[in-house]
């Protein structure tokens, strides 16, 4: 009995002394999809950060003899029927004399076993750490021994490696713009909501104006105005940064709304009457109250940036080959030829869907958790 009550009182104590963050975390953990999504997002970022090591091949290695090869199956059973260490079989290609289409058949006789931390051609991690090992590969690399788990593209490049490499750009390049938008949005939205009056009017009318400008023409204009000869990634980055200068309006409205609501909260008035300075009221009392909302909206705007990158690349306004991003990979796959003959080139689309889903659920969970004192 005493044990239990001791335990209960501990529990009670821990609840009573739980900070907003801990309460939010507890609430977040109840959102199962969000938790799974958190793991997925984490995994994706690990892939992106260690892309060179995680991908079986260099993303632009061309395999002249394996153009548009289908995904290679990992076998666990020998040709003879015995259980085997996981292996892949060599592919033999053949071109249809009439349709000129390449088709591949597995050579059941050849067997290339797989291993973790497989040897590879030397390469450099992040451009400066020389390595000769990759996370997964063929244990004894030799000519013709390939492991294209998600197939190859029109130049015989490994789709899996390209997706992993693309993750690095797709998951990161918009972050700068998103971050900048948020900083501007929070500052201007905060000013608008906190001071009200003419500041509010000015900011609100500016927002109306900026929101009415269509993005695509602006993007096109900027893309053309950026001086030539730049690295396409730099160009894209420059444009996202420029656009974030006008893209802060959404978050500014949110922040303004929160400020307006919080300004009326009793605890803010209480703080003022307790002699708190304006800056302390904002930083110590108001900001923590909506920081979690901001983090949730931030999380929700990342998938939008990923989707925007794919759409812009599709329109030829985003990144372009040889830069590797999911948008670029999808643009390459955007043809009936691919859908009918090499559907594995659509797998980057799956990567986009999974990532966007994960971020959305994560954001959803964070939004629920952002108000740990709410009733739901």
């Amino acid at each position: 009995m005493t044990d239990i009550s001791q335990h209960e009182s501990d529990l009670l104590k821990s609840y009573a002394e739980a900070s907003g963050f801990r309460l939010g975390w507890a609430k977040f953990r109840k959102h199962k999809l969000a938790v799974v999504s958190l793991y997925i997002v984490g995994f994706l970022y690990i892939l992106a950060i260690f892309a060179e090591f995680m991908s079986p091949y260099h993303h632009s290695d061309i395999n002249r003899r394996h153009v548009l090869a289908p995904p290679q199956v990992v076998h666990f059973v020998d040709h003879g029927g015995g259980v085997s260490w996981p292996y892949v079989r060599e592919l033999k290609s053949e071109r249809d004399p009439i349709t000129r289409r390449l088709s591949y058949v597995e050579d059941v006789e050849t067997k290339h076993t797989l291993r973790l931390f497989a040897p590879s051609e030397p390469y450099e991690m992040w451009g400066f750490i020389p390595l000769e090992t990759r996370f997964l590969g063929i244990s004894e690399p030799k000519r013709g021994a390939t492991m294209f788990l998600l197939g190859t593209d029109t130049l015989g490049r490994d789709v899996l490696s390209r997706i992993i490499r693309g993750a690095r750009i797709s998951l990161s390049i918009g972050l700068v713009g998103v971050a900048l938008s948020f900083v501007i949005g929070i500052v201007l939205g905060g000013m608008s909501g906190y001071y009200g009056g003419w500041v509010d009017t000015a900011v609100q009318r500016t927002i109306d104006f900026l929101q009415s400008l269509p993005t695509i023409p602006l993007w096109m204009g900027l893309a053309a105005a950026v001086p030539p000869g730049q690295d396409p990634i730099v160009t894209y980055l420059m444009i996202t940064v420029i656009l974030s200068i006008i893209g802060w309006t959404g978050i500014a409205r949110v922040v303004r709304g929160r400020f307006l609501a919080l300004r009326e909260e009793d605890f803010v008035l209480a703080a003022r009457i307790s002699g708190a300075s304006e800056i302390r009221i904002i930083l110590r009392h108001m900001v923590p109250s909506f920081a979690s909302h901001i983090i949730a909206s931030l999380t929700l705007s990342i998938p939008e940036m990923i989707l925007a990158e794919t759409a812009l690349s599709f329109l030829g306004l985003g990144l372009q080959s040889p830069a590797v991003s999911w948008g670029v990979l999808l643009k390459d796959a955007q043809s009936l030829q691919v859908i009918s003959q090499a559907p594995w080139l659509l797998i980057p689309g799956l990567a986009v869907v999974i990532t966007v889903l994960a971020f959305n659920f994560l954001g959803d969970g964070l939004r629920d958790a952002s108000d740990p004192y709410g009733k739901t």
Partner: protein
Amino acid sequence: MQSATSMTSPLLEIANLKKHFGQSRGLFKYDPHAVRAVNGISLTVKEGETTALVGESGCGKSTAAKLISGALAPTSGDIRLRTRDGTLLDVATLRGSARKKLWRDVQLIFQDPFSSLNPRMTVRQIIAEPLRNFGIARGEEATMIVADLLDRVGLQSNAMNRYPHAFSGGQRQRIGIARALAVNPRLVIGDEPVSALDVSVAAQILNLFQSLKRDLGLTYLLITHDLSVVRHSADRVAVMYLGQIVEENTTAALFSAPKHPYTHALLSAVPSHREKEKTRVVLPGEVASARNLPTGCAFHPRCALATDLCRKVTPQITTGSNGSRVACHTPLDEAST
């Protein structure tokens, strides 16, 4: 419960206080007096007394509380506070950080114990906030003061590290009181301090007010719609209707012999054990809007005794022989109650 009122000096004097809110009318016209939330109230709060400001919701008493506590700047009128160093502080003219001087002496207790405490701060942080801001104490010293305050409001010192979500409404209100007491104020304004609480809890809080008043020599200004609270706590009562004070008197006098028909109607709505025979006066119509005040006496559309005079001329508040004040053309005499 009555104290020797004549002996004490006024702590707070309010004269002709007005707060109007503006609104646009038509294209370019902006009427800065469209909503007359507080329309010229005068009131004196004497040191050591509990003064109550009573009225229905929407009568402007909350706005009055905000004006007096310096949270809102009045449109016109005077609020003068005698500070602890004896000087008179013109509250109505205070703006921005200058108001900090006021809050060293005047503190506010909020109606909603849930929203008035920052959910992201511990009780210690909440109560230490004024200590820190007014430079009274920091660190260990502050913690000791907080523990002392908690003890004073009837909470255990282990509450210090907890967050507001761990407390009940009554307990939270105690925390709020502790925070208000931290600066050792002279005037505590309670804006419906118990209306959000259960009856029994409310009674406990009111008792706490009483004991604190006793121990610390506090002066209260209670803003409430609940006459039963007033009867048990207040020394003087001022009744507000549509932005104006219609009657003011000592609690006993007001309850026994209301002069204004509105006061009478309010009192008749209070369940009373002593006066079972009393007839309930039902007010016809609805409270008029502060946006569109009736001409003459603001109360006339609902007043059974209204005359043509009431419809045309706004009655001025007049002070009676025994210090009572009433604003009515046709005040009730004792016989009619």
